[in-house]
């Protein structure tokens, strides 16, 4: 499997929280050869089951499919579209972007704002407010109304870019990188012997409050769950120990079951996989937060891919971290004993 190309396809697909359905076909196609069964729950989460040799226990992997985006609020008389945000969007990342308005069909637009000559010098010192931006689709109000309705979602149009040293950049790497990690893990597991059933879940609506994780964990009823997400990597103005290209970040803290944490770290050491420890003193802000308290409680872990410029359209990760994350998870799962009873005691 060409993982970089898979990631490119995932990032160039569009699925704002609540509108992830457009990516299902791609996912089903890419996961067809690495899973045994595909199911969907009422919420819309997609489950890819890779059966284990025994099938007594269930391991759940969760990576969220949704991305942050924008949504149509109004169409003004001159034919400009006003919009607001879905999820945590920094308004400063929006001026002069190319966008796709997901109306009756996908419609190209650009984000404009008042040109500098209409602004006072004081205005130039302030960030352009989202209320003062609009989308230009090159159509009149009447033409727009045929194709676009209030409530239609909008995504940034951004081609995936390869940088030096296996760094790659694109939109929605948060958390399509996690989806790619699940694919790599299942692919690796094809070569390995594993007792337990593995449910790789593409969860929905993480960005608006880890909602898909809540219903999917209830439905899978896993014995162990590991969420896969991205985390802030070191960059200018970002003080953290976590760095890109230094391997997956294994979460540690109240959200994480100590035995799962230890199992992941031990696996990384045993297989010489570069890894880092991510301290999580409180909410992890990931699907792991919801999964941990599903039903009677789930021993939960978190593997994160270090990422720069989170929630911009130039999110940047290193491919090596993605591949190592997938391998780490596969080896961890393959090394779980046949009997989990007692393994996860405190």
């Amino acid at each position, binding site marked *: 499997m060409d993982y970089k190309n898979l990631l490119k396809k995932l990032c160039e697909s569009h699925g704002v929280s609540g509108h992830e359905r457009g990516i299902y076909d791609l996912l089903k196609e890419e996961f067809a050869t690495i899973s045994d069964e595909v199911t969907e729950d009422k919420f819309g989460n997609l489950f890819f089951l890779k059966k284990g040799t025994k099938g007594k226990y269930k391991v759940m992997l969760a990576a969220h499919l949704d991305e942050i985006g924008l949504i149509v609020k109004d169409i*003004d008389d*001159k034919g*400009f579209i006003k919009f607001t945000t879905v999820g*945590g*969007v*920094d*308004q*400063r*990342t*929006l*001026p*002069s*972007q*190319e966008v796709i308005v997901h109306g009756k069909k996908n419609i*190209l637009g*650009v*984000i*404009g*704002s*008042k*040109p*500098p*000559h*209409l602004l006072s010098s004081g205005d*130039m*010192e*302030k*960030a*352009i407010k989202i209320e003062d931006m*609009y989308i*230009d*689709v*090159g*159509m*009149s109000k009447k*033409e727009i109304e045929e194709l676009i309705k209030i409530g239609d979602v909008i995504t940034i149009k*951004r*081609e995936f*870019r390869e*940088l*030096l*040293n*296996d*760094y790659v*950049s694109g939109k929605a790497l948060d958390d399509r990188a996690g989806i790619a990690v699940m694919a790599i893990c299942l692919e690796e597991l094809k070569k390995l012997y594993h007792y337990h059933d593995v449910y790789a879940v593409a969860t929905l609506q993480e960005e608006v409050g880890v909602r898909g994780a809540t219903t999917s964990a209830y439905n899978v009823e896993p014995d162990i769950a590991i969420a896969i997400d991205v985390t*802030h990597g070191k*960059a*200018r*103005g*970002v003080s953290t120990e976590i760095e890109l*290209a230094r391997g997956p970040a294994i979460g540690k803290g109240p959200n994480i079951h100590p035995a799962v944490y230890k199992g992941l770290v031990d696996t990384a050491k045993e297989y010489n996989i570069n890894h880092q420890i991510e301290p999580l003193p409180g909410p992890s*802000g990931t699907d792991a937060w919801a999964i941990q308290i599903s039903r009677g409680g789930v021993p939960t872990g978190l593997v994160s891919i270090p990422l720069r*410029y*989170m*929630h*911009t*359209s*130039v*999110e*940047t990760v290193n491919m090596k971290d993605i591949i190592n994350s997938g391998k780490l998870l596969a080896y961890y799962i393959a090394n779980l004993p046949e009997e989990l009873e007692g393994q996860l005691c405190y």
Partner: protein
Amino acid sequence: MLLKELTDLMGASGDEKEVREKIKEIVKPYVDELYVDKMGNLIACKKGKKEKPKVMLAAHMDEVALMVKSINEDGTLSFSPVGGVDNRILVSKTVKVGEKRVNGVIGAKPIHLQKREEQQKPLDFDALYIDIGATSKEEALKHVSVGDYVYFDANFELLGNGYVKSKALDDRIGCNVLIEILKRDYEYPVCAAFTVQEEVGLRGAGVAAYNIEPDFAIVVEGTVAADVSDSEPHLVSTELGKGPAISLMDRTTLYDKKIINKIVKIAEENGVPYQFRRIASGGNDAGKIHLTKGGIKAIAVSVPCRYIHSFNSVAFLEDFNNTVKLVDLIIKNIAKEALI
């Protein structure tokens, strides 16, 4: 589409080579004389049946861009603008660095880690940097160097009903108008100057005019249109769909009202829509041309463009077609209307 080819080229002020070579190749079959002057302006001339008056057309090849100012220890690149670039449009964009067109991204501190007031404050050039994936200064130096030009990574595409969007419409759309004119034959000699360095102070046009020695000059620009969502009617400058914009006054030129009136007459008699450029700010190559030698009569006709100097500017194709028509008519009527 020629406009796509022209706008996808990368040519900042002082680095117009790619654009110059392409235009040279395009216009070669149509012209009698083709040369590059000492400044780098590309001059393409066609003889007429008569010797005089000689008409000069000018459109600038250069676009606004960025330049690598320093390479930091962590492998990132600091940069400065080349020409007028609003720092607020740069965050969260992709760019191409240097002659190897190395991919780079301009990121920023994630929203999760910002203080509330940070979101209200734009990042200035000092706070912005380019990430090419290099992990050290030493490694970055293998791929890029200080002084490398950095280009907006944005493509031409058709937009909506009859519109286009791309970078560098200012002034590749003007270059395109000149190319269309060079395909036609006129009674008078016509020299098209594809000028350099307009964006950093109209550096090329004066030299071109000095070399060409025209009797009359027409500058063709892509100019600011502010016919946008929330602007007052008196502040729109120009509007898309209303035809070529004729300049009356800007920061560099007071255009001759007698000539303007004649241009208007030509447009009206021939049913070509036109509008006036209704702001006094900005400037164009006419500013240098009209002061060259003992003075040269010059006008400026522009295709209105929204969001100029950004990654994605927008123009209306019919305005482009009407600009070609108007320029064509001006040249044809130059003697009849006694424009010189």
